[in-house]
């Protein structure tokens, strides 16, 4: 299947801006006073984290639209699933880049920091959602199930975040994590613009991925229908042959 011209422009723009981002992030921007070159993780970690929220946000909105009888359409379910899958991939990358960055600045791969922990829970929540999506059954029932599961997971997020935040602040005042230098390195000039470029580039990539993943989902849907129809036709032909025989 051929992609439309719009998708191709989108894809090219995404690749070009990502290439520019790599040059800006790894070569042009200066070192940080405290973190030295480790600060360069900022330019992919922050855009990836932004993308994660965008992706799961799209899933939540599409799921809500599916449950709203006036807007109920198969496309919302497919869109929700496509976005969630991209979201899970991105969340995995957020965790990986976050812990590698953590290794360079804190000396350990993992700390029970509020954000890291919330992200880990988010990852598992939506892994469960994807697992649920893969369970078969009647199309409409499945879509409703998916939508409810996505919303139930989404409303949990603020509670998870709040609880984890309290947990960390109440019990360990002196953590090895120096929040100030980690989350707020002295960002200025080219560093600021590179973060913005990163968010833009990753958003372009997200749009391209979403369009294509959605089309794939639609094709999968069709092939499933087609397979079903073919099976029914074969059965019918068999039955006809049986009754036609003497």
């Amino acid at each position, binding site marked *: 299947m051929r992609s439309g011209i719009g998708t191709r422009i989108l894809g090219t723009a995404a690749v070009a801006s990502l290439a520019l981002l*790599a040059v800006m*992030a790894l070569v042009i921007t200066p070192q940080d006073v405290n973190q030295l070159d480790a600060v360069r993780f900022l330019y992919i970690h922050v855009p990836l984290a932004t993308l994660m929220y965008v992706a799961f946000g799209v899933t939540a909105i599409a799921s809500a639209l599916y449950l709203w009888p006036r807007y109920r359409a198969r496309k919302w379910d497919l869109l929700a699933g496509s976005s969630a899958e991209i979201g899970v991939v991105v969340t995995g990358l957020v965790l990986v880049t976050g812990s590698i*960055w953590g290794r360079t600045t804190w000396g350990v791969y993992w700390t029970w920091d509020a954000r890291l922990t919330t992200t880990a829970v988010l990852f598992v929540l939506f892994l469960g959602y994807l697992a649920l999506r893969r369970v078969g059954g009647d199309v409409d029932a499945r879509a409703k199930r998916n939508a409810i599961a996505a919303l139930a997971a989404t409303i949990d997020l603020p509670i998870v975040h709040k609880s984890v935040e309290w947990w960390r602040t109440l019990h360990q005042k002196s953590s090895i994590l120096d929040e100030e230098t980690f989350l707020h390195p002295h960002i200025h000039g080219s560093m600021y613009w590179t973060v913005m470029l990163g968010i833009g580039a990753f958003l372009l990539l997200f749009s391209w991925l979403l369009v294509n993943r959605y089309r794939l989902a639609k*094709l999968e849907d069709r*092939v499933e229908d087609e397979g079903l129809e073919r099976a029914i036709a074969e059965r019918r032909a068999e039955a006809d042959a049986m009754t036609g025989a003497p």
Partner: protein
Amino acid sequence: MTDVGYLVAGYGITFAVLASYAAWIVSKKRALARELPPEERDSRWP
């Protein structure tokens, strides 16, 4: 440059995963489109 190994690993993993995910989508899409009769292949957005 400091932390070169970690930076290479972080950027490498990120771009490799995203690129292979994109490649998987495209190749799967092509494979599926071949299974369908031509008039049903259109799967426009949205």
